[in-house]
């Protein structure tokens, strides 16, 4: 019986071990690539959203006949709670991607049969997916209100005055959506591995 060098530690048939062994390196490489991409995208999204500050001179018309009043207003990411949540979640996801990459590199990337070491990583991956998707939804809904306004609640649109702020916020949202897609792919890859090892059942 061929002894495995990897950290699987489970005995099995020869064919099963060989197939898992040669695919293990490929799967580990894919997973590392996905984590690196997730880290990069969430880092960029956090930075782009966190440096979002715009000072504009807004013309407010008080009444007909009076000249419009020019006010210098500032739009900053910390003024809105959903953008603060967005930046915080992207920063947490980026930090988690870095920590989990270090953890997997140190413990040898337990996948497939040795599931006990990776159940914590899977659980945290799932919470990161949920947090990232919720931050995307929150930022998107507030951005939509800022773009269109809401006549029923008397919330006026803002983006016509702060064009650069809104465009930068939208770009950060798109980048974060890509990052959350990569986090989802990490979970999907783990499930695919698990499905492949139980196929003989």
């Amino acid at each position, binding site marked *: 019986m061929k002894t495995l060098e990897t950290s699987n530690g*489970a005995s099995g048939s020869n064919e099963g071990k060989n197939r898992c062994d040669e695919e293990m390196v490929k799967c580990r490489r894919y997973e590392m690539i996905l984590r690196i991409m997730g880290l990069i995208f969430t880092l960029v999204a956090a930075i782009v959203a966190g440096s979002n500050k715009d000072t504009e001179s807004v013309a407010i018309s008080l009444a007909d006949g009076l000249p419009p009043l020019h006010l210098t207003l500032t739009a900053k990411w910390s003024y809105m709670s959903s953008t603060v949540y967005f930046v915080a979640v992207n920063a947490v996801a980026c930090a988690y991607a870095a920590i989990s990459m270090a953890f997997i590199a140190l413990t040898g990337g337990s996948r497939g049969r040795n599931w006990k070491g990776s159940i914590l990583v899977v659980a945290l991956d799932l919470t990161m997916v949920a947090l990232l998707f919720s931050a995307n939804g929150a930022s998107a809904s507030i951005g939509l209100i800022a773009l269109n306004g809401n006549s029923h609640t008397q*919330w006026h649109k803002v983006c016509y005055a702060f064009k650069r702020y809104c465009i930068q916020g939208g770009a950060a949202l798109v980048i974060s959506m890509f990052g959350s897609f990569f986090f989802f792919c990490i979970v999907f890859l783990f499930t695919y591995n698990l499905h492949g*090892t139980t196929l003989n059942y």
Partner: protein
Amino acid sequence: MASEPEKVVPPVEAPVAEPAPPPSTTRPTDYFAVADVVLRLLVFASALVSVVVMSTSKETEMLPNPRPAKFTQSPALIYFVAALSVAGFFSLITTLGSLYSLIKPGCCAKIISHFIVIDVLLLGIVASATGAAGSVTYVGLKGNTYVGWGKVCTMYGKFCRYLGASIGVSLFASVMLVLLVLLSVYSLSKKIPK
């Protein structure tokens, strides 16, 4: 035709005094399959409750002209209702699937991994809907002085309470979905041939 010089005692064919192995038909209760069905039913129930509570949250204030507050006035709340209906529908399908797999054990082990992917997708959808509706409700509750958006919940108290309850229940549904995926991963990994 030579006679046998020695009488060879024929070997005993049937095993003697060996207790029969326990029959494989008496299987222990598969707690994971039962917990799976229960969790999926919980997810379906909470999605249903969220959709119903959000849909019936209409409040009309008698100002100079009566102005109703409905969930259709905000695109984020419409998205919330749509996403949770989809989640409820899919959780119903997967409940029926895992119930069938509970009744006929050992039939579909491959289906668990498909359910895991569906559950992760549902988690993403429900989480994004919760985030969207939660952010709109929070702005309606606290207002935002920098942008000039006023509080809404001081006037429409019942509306905001219904919204808050619906969002809280959908948060519970997303936590249940996380537990469900972890449970499915655990039960799938126990089936790995040793």
